[in-house]
Structure formats: C-alpha cells, structure tokens
C-alpha cells in the first residue's frame, strides 16, 4: 500500500526528516509515536502533499504510484486521507456542502456515479450514526468555533465518509474526552479492513488500547529510531522516550 524509502524532507530550507523508511501493507495499522517536534506532522503533511514540504531525497510509493508527483487533491482522490492535528477553520463554507463536494470529487475520480443532495444526506446520516454524532456540526461553517474535541470528531467523520485507502490520523485522539475516544476508536476500528491502511500518530498508549496497531514506530529527530510490535507503545509509556535511545525533544 505505502512504501516510504529513505525519505528526506525539507521545510523552508531546513531538513526535518532525515531518511525515513516505512512500509505499510494493505489492511495494516501502524502507530507513529515520538516526542514533540520529532517530525510526525511533517511526515503526515508530506504524505498529503502540503506546499512547502519538499522531498529532497528518497521516494514515496502509494499503490505503486509516485505520491510525491501528485497534487494534494489527486492524492485525496487516489485515497489518501489526512486527519489534521489542527483542523482549519473556514468561515463561510458549510461543512455539508464541502463534504458533498469532496465525496463527489473522489467518486468522479473512481468512476462511480456522483451523489445528489438526497443520496448524500442519507449516506452521511449513516456515518453520523456510526460515530454517534448529530448533524448540527456539519451545518455550521467548517470547524468555526468548534471545540477541540468536536474538530477531531468531525475529522473522523470525514474519514468515514470519504472511505480512503490510506488514512493518516495526526493526533486525532488529542483533545477527545474518554467517551469520545471510545466512540471514535470503535469508528476507526469499523473502518479497518483488508483494503484500508492506517498511520496513526499519537502520544498516548490509551488510543492504541482500543485501536490495536500491527506495528509501532518511534520517530525522533526526524528519524525512525525504533520499530516494533504493539508492546513497544506500552514500554514507551512506562519508561519514556529517553530509555529507548530516542532523544527527548
């Protein structure tokens, strides 16, 4: 599904990622952990194609295609989804009309019939139900005035609606209360499947108790310093980053 090879990334002329290797097979869930400033969001952004995140060396293959050569919208249509650590507030654009436009772009790209307003509403309602959410947030302008937790829940909803092949969730668990964490986790679990891979960036073992990863990678100083099974997250929780040979931020 995703092959990252010796990936070097520069932001504003400064190298942030110094050679990342990561291979995520179809259906797998990998967790990425690491201290503040270690480059987790940078990795997420470069996968999603944010301007200013330059790949200076190495490559990213997504389903065999060169991801770095695609625009952000092409990646999204191909099935890459980034759940933002800090979802952006967009005044004046209603969440519903935005999501409908997004869904239909993806469907058009996949050669599936676009949804009309009624079909879309039905489709979204089912996803809202799965995540135990009302539709009030979607009627408002995108993320405007949402609480931190509400923003994260809407990110997960968007993922559920867009049905990506690769979901990168950047600290989606931060800011969620305990109940919301359970609901969101079961939502994420419901979306796990043989043709969907996930890269879950988190600081907390708690999420990984619900969304059990196939692998855990520790990022530090722009490098993956250790990879292992789900026990690695537990070990980390107990001993902190320093013990693992990762420089604390």
């Amino acid at each position: 599904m995703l092959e990252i090879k010796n990936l070097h990334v520069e932001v504003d002329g400064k190298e942030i990622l110094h050679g990342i290797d990561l291979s995520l097979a179809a259906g797998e869930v990998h967790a990425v952990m690491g201290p503040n400033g270690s480059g987790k969001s940078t990795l997420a952004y470069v996968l999603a194609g944010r301007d200013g995140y330059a790949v200076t060396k190495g490559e990213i293959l997504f389903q065999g295609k060169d991801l770095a050569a695609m625009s952000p919208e092409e990646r999204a249509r191909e099935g890459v989804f980034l759940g933002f650590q800090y979802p952006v507030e967009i005044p004046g654009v209603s969440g519903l009309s935005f999501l409908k436009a997004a869904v239909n772009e993806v469907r058009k790209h996949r050669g599936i019939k676009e949804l009309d307003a009624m079909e879309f509403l039905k489709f979204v309602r089912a996803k809202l139900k799965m995540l135990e959410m009302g539709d009030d947030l979607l009627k408002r302008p995108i993320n405007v005035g949402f609480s931190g937790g509400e923003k994260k829940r809407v990110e997960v909803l968007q993922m559920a609606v867009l049905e990506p092949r690769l979901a990168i969730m950047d600290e989606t668990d931060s800011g969620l209360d305990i109940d919301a964490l359970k609901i969101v986790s079961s939502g994420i679990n419901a979306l796990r499947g043989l043709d969907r891979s996930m890269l879950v960036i988190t600081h907390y073992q708690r999420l990984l108790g619900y969304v059990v990863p196939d692998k855990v990678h520790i990022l530090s100083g722009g490098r993956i310093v250790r990879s292992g099974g789900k026990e690695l997250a537990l070990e980390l929780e107990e001993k902190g980053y320093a013990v693992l040979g990762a420089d604390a931020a």
Partner: protein
Amino acid sequence: MSATTHALHLDRFEAAKAGLPGDARARADALARYAKLGVPTPKLEAWHFTSLKPLDEAALAPSDAKVAVTAATVAGHALSTSHAHHQLVFVDGHFRADLSRIGTLPKGVVLTGWSAAKSLPKDFLAEAADAGAMRVLNAAYAADGAILEVPAGVALAAPVHLMFLGASGAAHARNRITMGEGASATVLETYVGTGRYWTNAVTDISIAAGAMLKHLKLQTEGGEAFHTAATAAHVAAKGVYDSFVLSIGGKLARNEIDAVLKGEGGRVKLEGAYLARARQHIDNTTIIDHAAAHCDSEERYRGVLDDHAYAAFQGRIVVRPDAQKTNAHQLNENLLLSDRAEIGSKPELEIHADDVKCGHGATAGEIDEQALFYLRARGIGLEQARGMLIEAFVSELIDAIADEAIRDRFTASVGGWLYDAQGARRAA
C-alpha cells in the same frame, strides 16, 4: 477642440435643453457649475484614488434614448417572477413604461418614472453648494428617473426593482425615494448593459422619523462601461437606512454614498462587496455624517481583486460636536488574488464629540493557504477550492440579505463572476 465627454456635454446643452423637463434655470445653473468644476481629478481629495481620464477620453455624449431593448433582455435581468415585486425599467436613463411592471401598490404609494409622473417635486434638480461635478452634471441633463413615495405608516411589502439598462452615450438618471414616518420598503437598483456607455446616476433618499429603507444595488455593467453614481440619504430620528452595494461590472465604476443621521436614534448600515478583475477599477467612497446624538452606524465592505484590478475604498465618518453617544464602526477587508492587483483603502474619522465609540479597520490579504490545503486534502481541486474560499468571503455578507429573491440574485452574480474569473485563469 478634440471631442471629450466633458466637451460634448458642454457643447450639446444648448440644443438639448429645450427637450429637458422641469426647471430650465436650475439646469442652466447646474451646467454652469459643472463647467466651472470640470471633470474631477485625483488632485481632489475625494477623487484621490480615481482618475476619470478614460471616461473623458471615451467621448460619450448625452444619450438620446433611441435604443431598442426587447422584453427578453429585460426578463433576463429581472428578479424571479415567483417572488412578488414591482419593476421599473430605464434604458439609457429613460423610463420605459412598456417594459415595466409596476403592479398593485398599497394606497398612497407613488411609484413611477418621472417622465410619466403627474408632477415633479420642486427641488428635484436642486444641488447643495458643495455638490460634486458629477452630481451637478446629472442635474443639468437628467431627463428621467424613478420616483418612489411611501406615505407615513405604510409598509411596502414587495421589493421595488429599478432596472437600468445602458447601451450608448451618457445616461443621467435621477431617482428620488421618500419614506414617510414609520414607512418601510426595500428597493433594488440594478445596472446592466452592453457596449461603451456611461451611467451617471443620482439617487436622493429621505427617510422620515421611524421609517426604514433597505436599499440594495447590483452593479453589473458591461466590461466597456463607465459607472458613476451618487446616493444621498437623509435619516431622521429613529430612521434606518440599510444599504448593500455589490459592484462587479464596468471598466471604471465609482459608487458614492453620503448618509446623514439627522435625528436621535437613527441607524445607518452600509455594506458592500466588490469583485474586480482584468484592468477594472472600482471605487467606493462613502461618508456617514453623525449630525445627531444616539445614532449608530456600521460599515462593512469586502473586496476581491484579481489580475491588474484596482479598488479604492474611502470611508469618511464625521461625528459632529452634538452627536454624543455615537457608535460608529467601519471595516474594509480585501482579498488579493494576484500580486498585481491593488487596493487603496482610506478610512477617515473626523470626531468632534467626546462621548463616542468609533472604530475602523482595513485589511488586505491573500487566500488562506492553510484553508486551501485543507480543502484540497479532501479532494477538491485547486480552482474549485479557491472559488469556494472567495465565495465564502463574499457570501458571509450576502447571506445576511433578508429578501430571498435579491439574495439569490446577488449570489448568482458572484457565482457568475467566479466562473468568468476561473475561465480567464484557465485560458491564461
């Protein structure tokens, strides 16, 4: 002397004046004043950002109203017939009863073109001593315009749509709106046209105590057109003047609003949006004069500028010595889509009272890169994402327009602009 718009207006007056209705002396005086003032230049404070040289060089003579317009053209610019409204049509500034649909009016309401009116107000052509050149030129040549009188206590439920079609020459329409005590109405002026012509409109508004006028203007003149318009609104105690001006068309367009709060408890709200591209020049110049205490004014204009477009915003707020407890707020926000687009924004607060709350702000920024990336990261293409953000910027104002038919028309005009701008971008 080579033909200029200025010279043509001076030269043609002798021949034209016999055919012009109303007070001949007032017209002659107005022309004399115009001759003295001449075409405004950026040397004048009020015209600091705008040169009318292209208008002068376009050599446009006063129009003679012989242009044929079909009902289909009018229908294309009309409000949706599923909403009741009163429609008056003017072609090159002349009332066309045959194209108008005034419909049934509440008792006592007068709504007509003045060429069809029983009588004209005496002071119809009167101009204040400090009136600008474009206003006095309009007084000299105005042959027609709309008259709306809503008597005391009457609420005119359906909006009045004044449609001005431009096709040739210079059109000097002169409109008068009179709201009696406690009366209310909604008036939409739209300006459209094709070809090279000049609209020079004047709209004078008087709002009696407790009356309310919602005044909307949609300026989508043709790409070769010139548009200068001056609106003056006098608001008595507890009166409300609520204005929204959407400027999209024209090669060079200037909209002036001069609102005076004359009685306590009055309110003025001036909102507007302008969208300009190519080499368009759009100027909004407003004055809000707080001449009485306990009045509120709120002003908010947003602009979107692409390509080489230039916009000017001059907002003057005057608070007279007696106007204590004034609340006055002004905000001008601009979205620059190209680094060659330019905005000249000048707030001017002239405050002579001490117990007031006044504030102003002006911003100019680019499209929010983070918002753009967020939309694109969900699969929405670059152009569509830009369009959504631009539309959102403007629709935050437009969505608050109460009248549905008018709001829809404004939204559609913004959509049309975006579509054209995207087309131009793709072609470039």
